[in-house]
């Protein structure tokens, strides 16, 4: 029988532990178990056969670590060929009469993916793809991805399976005692990601016993519309007389698991410490159970690498600030490839309370695909909010969705045939909730009814692609009332009909409604309230607007969505302070010396506020030269004299940066741009530490240098190319480990050859003057201030 069909109608029994049994047969610690497929085929076949005899429907090939990072191509093929042969052999050797399947077992690579580790996402996909292709070649019935403790690596593995075969694929993760993956994902987040990408079953295995994994199983069952897997260890390990034993008996294991099968788990087996006897007890105890029917949970949900965001009664806020439209400072950041600016916008919006971040980095003169990919990767490295990928460029969209660590919101598709043909295949492949605009080849209809007709057409077409309506959120298009006074009404009526009659969730770019009007906040927030009453599920909005946030908290409080009005009360003070801040502050203080004081003391917010006040009657350049630089010098000299310590130096530098940021965003002409030297900074190839590099960068920026940060783990070639391209005066290189010093030398050699005009500064934990001399650096800087002083000296020459 076909596995998918069998899975729909039955409880499927997997096998139990392999490692424990191999050790009992003489496998030494550190020995690679996969090689036993070749050296001990009889042992492996016997274990598989014992599991089939115990009642397993599926045995997993002994290929947990069989990947191209550990074995060369020839070895890998031999291992997988033998492993599949051993398992298939067992299907005929066993006298069990149940349905039997062989699953290609894929475990984690043992490497952590970038940016936390050094394995690139696409490289991970390629590694898994090799294993998958071999499994398919030797005829497995299905694929099991298991014991994955990172959502991103799980995605890479599933993508590799989906791109290389049509076999059924079931996916199981290793959850910790906190109910999350090692890298932070909750069960709900994993369901969103994996179900979205088309896994046939999802679940949990390893790390804990059935008792501890019960909570995880319950969470999975609550969220998944597809079968749930549970393959726990034989309890928790404990050490008795120097031997690891597990803390529950075979019967306890089977009882616990039987209880969980009653709750709805459809695929069950054992992991570390379990043996054929555990599986036998399990199958015997549960053979009379009829499988709990699967049901569609009908959830509209997006996810990040940590958590899922569900569309429900409480409105969802989608931060709109990562978007260059109408924002001069943002455009400048994009042109200068200033990712830190984008990240700061992300962090600030998160602090304001948005649930999802819209990411739009489209500008005519930049490579949008590269920029969007980089923005998505950088944002998801440090911010745990789901992202809404916002682009009209299909290549950019696919690149970003591929790299996204979760189930993204996709902005957007519309009723045009061309748009649906481009976007729906991406939604199907990568998963996602897509925003559908109610417009088509004839433009945006003026009436609500016509917009609803387009919505119906979009739903019908989506279903042809196998996309359910729960994964579509309709945007009925807010248009400005300054051009057409009936515009808001049409939007709201269409919204209401779609929510109540089509049963779909909705979203609006709220701010559009007030375009061209004065005091837009007032119009926006009232429209927001009206839309919420008409069934708006999510709003793309400006979270810095106190009016909008007021509406949000008040709406929840008034709609029984905020128990004891707790959230409203917690934020009521924010509204009050915003009101105060809009009243003019008397500038009776001596702002100039106050600014110096704020920077020296490291008060970020105060430094920004004082700079704003100073700008009213002081030239930007005078503030820089009269206050910021003198303050920095005071701190810098203190640091050099050891009266100021590194943390204080950095706090001052951050305060100075926030003052600079105010100046930058206020200056309309380009005369703020530094005419000082251009400096390139990077951590060299092979090294992923960047804290020291970031400290040096911050200080150089403070002193007005034009700093181009190439990031960490940067090849010599990239650094040299950028030195030429930007006509850099200085290149700063950082390395932390002795092993990466050769990469530094290689970089310096290449710079000397390709960009001889460039001076090189080196620094980092491992470096000394002696090392620096040996590798031919122009300068060894023992700390950030020394790098600044040297840079100033070079410019003075």
């Amino acid at each position: 029988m076909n596995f998918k069909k069998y899975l729909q109608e039955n409880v499927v029994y997997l096998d139990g532990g392999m490692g424990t049994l191999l050790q009992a047969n003489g496998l030494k610690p550190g020995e690679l178990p996969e090689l036993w497929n070749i050296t001990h085929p009889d042992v492996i076949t016997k274990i598989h056969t014992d599991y089939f005899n115990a009642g397993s429907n599926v045995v997993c090939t002994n290929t947990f670590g069989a990947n191209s990072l550990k074995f060369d191509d020839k070895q890998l093929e031999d291992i997988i060929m033998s492993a599949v042969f051993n398992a298939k052999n067992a299907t005929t050797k066993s006298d069990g009469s149940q349905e039997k399947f062989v699953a290609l077992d894929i475990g984690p690579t043992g490497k952590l993916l970038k940016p936390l580790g050094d394995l690139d996402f696409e490289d991970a996909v390629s590694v898994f793809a090799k294993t998958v292709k071999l499994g398919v070649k030797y005829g497995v019935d299905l694929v099991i991805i298991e014991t994955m403790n990172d959502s991103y690596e799980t995605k890479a593995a599933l993508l590799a399976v989906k791109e290389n075969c049509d076999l059924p694929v079931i996916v199981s993760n290793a959850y910790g005692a906190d109910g999350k993956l090692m890298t932070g994902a909750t069960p709900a987040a994993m369901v969103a990601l994996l179900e979205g990408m088309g896994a046939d079953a999802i679940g949990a295995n390893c790390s804990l016993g059935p008792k501890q994994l019960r909570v995880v199983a319950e969470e999975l069952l609550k969220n998944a519309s597809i079968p749930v897997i549970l393959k726990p260890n034989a309890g928790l390990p404990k050490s008795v007389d120097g031997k690891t034993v597990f803390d529950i008996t075979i019967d306890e294991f089977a009882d616990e698991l039987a209880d969980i099968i009653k709750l709805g788990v459809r695929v069950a087996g054992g992991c570390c410490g379990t043996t054929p006897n555990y599986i036998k007890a399990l199958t015997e105890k549960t053979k009379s159970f009829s499988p709990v029917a699967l049901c569609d949970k009908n959830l509209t949900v997006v996810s990040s690498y940590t958590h899922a965001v569900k569309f429900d009664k409480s409105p969802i806020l989608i931060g709109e600030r990562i978007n260059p439209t109408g924002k001069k400072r943002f455009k400048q950041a994009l042109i200068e490839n200033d990712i830190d600016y984008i990240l700061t916008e992300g962090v600030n919006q998160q602090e304001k309370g948005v649930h999802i971040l819209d990411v739009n980095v489209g500008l005519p003169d930049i490579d949008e695909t590269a920029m969007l990919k980089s923005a998505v990767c950088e944002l998801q490295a440090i911010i745990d909010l789901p992202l809404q990928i916002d682009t009209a460029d299909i290549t950019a969209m696919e690149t970003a969705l591929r790299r996204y660590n979760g189930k993204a919101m996709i902005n957007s598709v519309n009723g045009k045939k061309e748009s649906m043909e481009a976007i729906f295949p991406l939604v199907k492949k990568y998963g996602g909730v897509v925003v559908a605009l109610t417009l088509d080849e004839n433009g945006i209809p003026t009436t609500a009814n016509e917009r609803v007709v387009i919505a119906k057409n979009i739903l019908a077409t989506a279903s042809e692609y196998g996309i359910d309506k729960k994964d579509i959120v309709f945007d009925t298009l807010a248009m400005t009332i300054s051009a057409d006074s009936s515009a808001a009404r049409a939007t709201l009526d269409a919204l209401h009909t779609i929510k109540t009659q089509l049963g779909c969730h909705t979203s609006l770019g709220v701010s559009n409604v007030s375009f061209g009007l004065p005091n837009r906040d007032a119009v926006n927030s009232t429209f927001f309230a009206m839309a919420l009453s008409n069934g708006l599920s999510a709003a793309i909005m400006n979270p810095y607007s106190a009016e909008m946030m007021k509406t949000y908290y008040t709406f929840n409080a008034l709609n029984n969505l905020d128990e004891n009005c707790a959230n409203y009360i917690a934020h009521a003070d924010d509204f009050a302070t915003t009101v105060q801040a809009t009243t003019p502050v008397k500038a009776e203080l001596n702002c100039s010396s106050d600014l110096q004081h704020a920077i020296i003391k490291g008060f970020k917010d105060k430094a920004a506020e004082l700079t704003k006040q100073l700008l009213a009657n002081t030239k930007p350049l005078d503030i820089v030269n009269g206050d910021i630089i003198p303050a920095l010098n005071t701190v810098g000299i203190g640091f050099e004299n050891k009266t100021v310590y590194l943390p204080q130096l950095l706090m001052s530098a951050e305060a100075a940066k926030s003052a600079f940021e105010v100046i930058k965003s206020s200056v309309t002409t380009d005369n703020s741009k530094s005419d000082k030297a251009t400096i390139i900074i990077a951590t060299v190839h092979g090294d992923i530490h960047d804290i020291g590099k970031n400290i040096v960068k911050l200080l150089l920026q403070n002193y007005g240098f034009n700093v181009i940060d190439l990031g960490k783990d940067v090849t010599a070639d990239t650094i040299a190319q950028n030195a030429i391209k930007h006509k850099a005066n200085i290149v700063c290189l950082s390395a932390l480990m002795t092993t990466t010093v050769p990469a530094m030398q290689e970089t310096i050699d290449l710079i000397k050859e390709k960009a001889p005009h460039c001076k090189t500064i080196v620094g980092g934990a491992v470096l000394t003057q002696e090392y620096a001399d040996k590798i031919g650096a122009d300068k060894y800087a023992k700390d950030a201030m020394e790098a600044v002083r040297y840079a100033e000296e070079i410019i003075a020459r």
Partner: protein
Amino acid sequence: MNNIIIKTYPAPPINKKEVLRYAGGGNDDNTLKLLEECIKEISNALTYKVCYCELSSKTNKDICDFDIFQVKSQNLATNLKDCNKVIVMGATVGITLDRLIAKYSRISPAKALILQALGAERIEALCDTFCEDIKKSLKITLKPRFSAGYGDLPLDTQNSIFTLLNLPKNIGLTLNDSMLMSPSKSVTAFIGIQEV
């Protein structure tokens, strides 16, 4: 012997003085305030996991023979001179701290610096806790921890340690191509056992 054990510990008490020392000094109000902020932020973010295994140990000149694998290092051999047994261990405080450090190094280097220092103090505290635990439970004394990269012990000894202990699977500790560990606040080491 040869049995791989995984342990999870509760958070050891934080030695703030030590954190500030790692951060490059300073105990003014602002720095202390920042430190408190960081301590609060990591309070639920860290895990304290150790994976270890006891091996037999013989030394002959600069060869350390652990039966399962051998290492060539005069310094380690000297360290293990009187020991018949050695503990090979890997410890980590988990990946969440790396994310926090990455986040703040982009938006607040001062905070990133303190978090970095805090991480260094945390992992050392975990290793100390582990050693105390082993000393007490096995009634033995231990030699100082000795890690790959110390003295003449080659960095690529990490490969043997990682394969032996299966650290990626057991405690989520991975090794990259330059022999750096992720999570970054992690330690692997040999610890000589001296029977009392």
